[in-house]
């Protein structure tokens, strides 16, 4: 079992539905977020290109956040999902510094919080809240170990990239281009 997500940059319109669906699903306090939108424009008028991305924790194989955590609050669970145990977190922020994706934030209740790939839903056979809501269906979630899963198929059929490959984190959120 190795969970992963693909994000189709061709289809995403940057509507932020993934952000608000995550907030209401995971009780993320307003003013904070576990996922967000990035818009990247290149060129000069009228020769332009634009990419829209829905970004979140990349659920890396090689996890600088877990490595730097002094208490063991940051850890990896089955399927490669990186999680934080709030009770064990002392809010030192080392993981926030270490993450090349800016995927973590200080929860106002005093711990560090981040995307969990909605493991509480996935356990029950559901998909993540952001994937379930996305109007353009640009997000796909699934098991990379299963060659017949939608994510495996998409990664075989489409061109893709990952963010900050130079960081060597082996991220598991793939951007279809």
């Amino acid at each position, binding site marked *: 079992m190795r969970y992963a997500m693909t994000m*189709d940059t*061709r*289809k995403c*319109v*940057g*509507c*932020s*539905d993934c*952000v*608000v*669906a995550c*907030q*209401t*699903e*995971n*009780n*993320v*306090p*307003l*003013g*904070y*977020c576990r996922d*967000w*939108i*990035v*818009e*990247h*424009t*290149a*060129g*000069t*008028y*009228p020769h*332009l*290109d*634009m*990419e*829209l991305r829905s970004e979140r924790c990349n659920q890396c194989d090689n996890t600088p956040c877990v490595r730097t955590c002094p208490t063991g609050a940051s850890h990896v669970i089955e399927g490669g999902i990186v999680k934080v145990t709030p009770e064990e977190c002392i809010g030192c*922020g080392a993981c*926030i*510094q270490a993450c090349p994706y*800016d995927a973590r*934030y200080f929860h*106002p*209740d005093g711990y560090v919080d981040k995307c969990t790939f*909605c493991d*509480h*839903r996935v356990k*029950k056979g*559901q998909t993540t809240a952001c994937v*379930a*809501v*996305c*109007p*353009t*269906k*640009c997000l796909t979630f699934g098991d990379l170990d299963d060659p017949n899963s939608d994510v495996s198929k998409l990664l075989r059929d489409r061109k893709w990239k990952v963010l900050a490959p130079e960081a060597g984190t082996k991220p598991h959120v793939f951007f279809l281009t």
Partner: protein
Amino acid sequence: MKTRREFIKISAVAAGGIAVLKPALSWSPDFLKKDIEPLDESKAKRYPTFCEVCFWKCAGFTYLNKDGEIQKIIGNDKDPHCNGRFCPRGTGGVGMYYDNDRLKFPQKRVVDGDGTHKFVQISWEEALDTIADNMKDIADKYGPESMALLYHASSGSYFKHLMQAYGSKNIAKPSYAQCLGPREAGFVATYGMGVSSPEPTDIKNTECLVLIGNHVGENMHNGYVQEVADAIERNASIITVDPRFSTIASKSKFWLPIKPATDLALLLSWIHVLIYEELYDKKYVEQYAFGFDELKAHVKNFTPEWAYTKTDIDPKDIRDSAYEMAKASPAVIVHPGRHTTWYGDDTQRTRAIAILNALLGSFGKKGGWYFAEKKSVPHFPSPEYPHPKWTWKDITKKTYKGAGTGISNDLIKASLPENKNEHKVKGWIVVGTNLMTTIPDVETTKRAIENLDFIAVVDTMPMEITGYADILLPECTYLERYDDIRSSQHRIPNIALRMPAANPRWESKPGWWMAKEIANRLGLGDYFAYDSVEEELDWKFKQMGTSLEEMQKIGVKQFDKETDLYLADGEEHYFNTDTGKIELYSLDLEAKGYDPMPKFIEHKQPDSGFYRLIYGRAPMHTFGRTINNPNLTDLMDENKIWVNPKVAKIWGVEAEQEIWLKNQDGKISTFPIKVRITERIRHDSVYMIHGFGNTEKGLSRGYGRGASDSEMITNVKIDPIMGGTGMRENFVTFLLENPHLEENKIENKEAES
């Protein structure tokens, strides 16, 4: 220590063109913190609803958490408007319920001894009595026709019934004359039927989609966006015409960066190419269309080379995009757009779009336009309406002969003191529409209100219009009320139920109850001959072969379609026009004294130092309706003005710098707006999201955030055919110093003299 926000700044600097849309750290309500454990949907209580955050009205279910409080809203899989997926506004609809700035109690305007006005909390009894008494007075003095209803909220349907029972048909929605009216009139003149909503464009099966200034994806019309995303996946061609590099332009095969206000030249030139290069659907045109020869003669000189001189678009791109459409014919859609009130010749522009579709043989064809079907909703038994002595038609139809419904701005004008004719409007009921930002030329609206005998306003939020009310009624949100049945046209006829998921907060009440209570006080109780809305809805549902009980479980019910979705090859079809055919040459428009075929008119271009004001939508907001919603302001809490880097350099303005706007008539924006420097906008235009810059102080998150585009729209180009208000011929320049400070005011005056 490196913080998240500093990181954003760093990444923006490093990569140049990156904008990160992360919520601003602002506000953290208690309600989202209560449940530490995420909700288990399979065990949670849920109630069907359809969304009221925008007009698309997607159906879904409101879920309660374990404490019985509203937690989230999720789309209904059976609903063709959303296919189980809500858009950000629908998902964030919970914020509407939890917004503590909501209107809480009925209030009345009181004028103190020193002449100052204030609102005082009153009982529902007093509020409803006062409205009924004023309606009686107006009926006695001028006749019931002198009351008008201006509405947009769903509950408007019960007020509409009240108004007609009372004896007035002076009813208008700004969504006609300020939005989609021209396209309806343009399609009626061509096909004998309007487009209506949701648009029956068969994007699901199309091979080519043409968008004229239509920013799908930024306008989050849910089912429409979903089908466009599918079309992108299928590699369908998209042709986008827009002076701005919109989201959909970035996903298009052709982006034609047009000089604003010249769209009709491009459309006529496309028609020219299709006809003179014989690329049109000859068989279709011969069978279904009227006036081809006249059209051919009319467009003879509208070559791409001619259009280039107007539009700035390379003739080769005009031809290639026309070939692309012809190649896909009939699976091609030239989309009619939605907000079409631009330059005053908007019905004619939409006529050109309608004609293009006919030449491409796409109307009534797979991948083009399908024939939608709608289930009619029976009326609960009630007496016949009285026949009013005059209606909106007597005001509007004399001038705007192609108007299809009441014209909001015309009813407003009928309330002006200088209106000396016999048709005077002396009282308004306003339900769920902020007229001050919806209707352009706000000073006229204010003068009309000054001259009214009475105005009652129904809304969920304090908005600018609520400040003008004599009586202000707090409506509960859509999550706390029943409303009339949603029946909408689609590939499959379907209906949806909205029911409350919570009790109304404070003293707010549903609109149906207010209308019924006012009717009782006017002696019109027979028109609302049911004890509760449940009884009324159940009766209607039973006539339609279901029941309230069933609908409370399923939320959406689909029915069999009775007519075919498409025309079969060569099938006879009668169009509801004078000739029974698609009128390329409109006999009806000609008879009414208008051009039977669209003509290109030169529109004004900006003077030096001024930029055309283009406005539009953001996916997380609907008009100004959402600008105080805690969840949605968390995604975007202000608008910015898009400025081309070359223009920014001329002015020496920097990103995020606050500037004030001044338009061609000297109107200065109340609030400053931050600059967004981006290549995505033409040098002769600026762009901003509509709905911000609200001046209502009761909005703790909306007040004074960003600037108002509406405020800058003082030049209104009225469509001579249907009375729509063209709003895109306004130009702004920049003021870098606060013009509202006393010392700067003096300087401004000196500069002007």
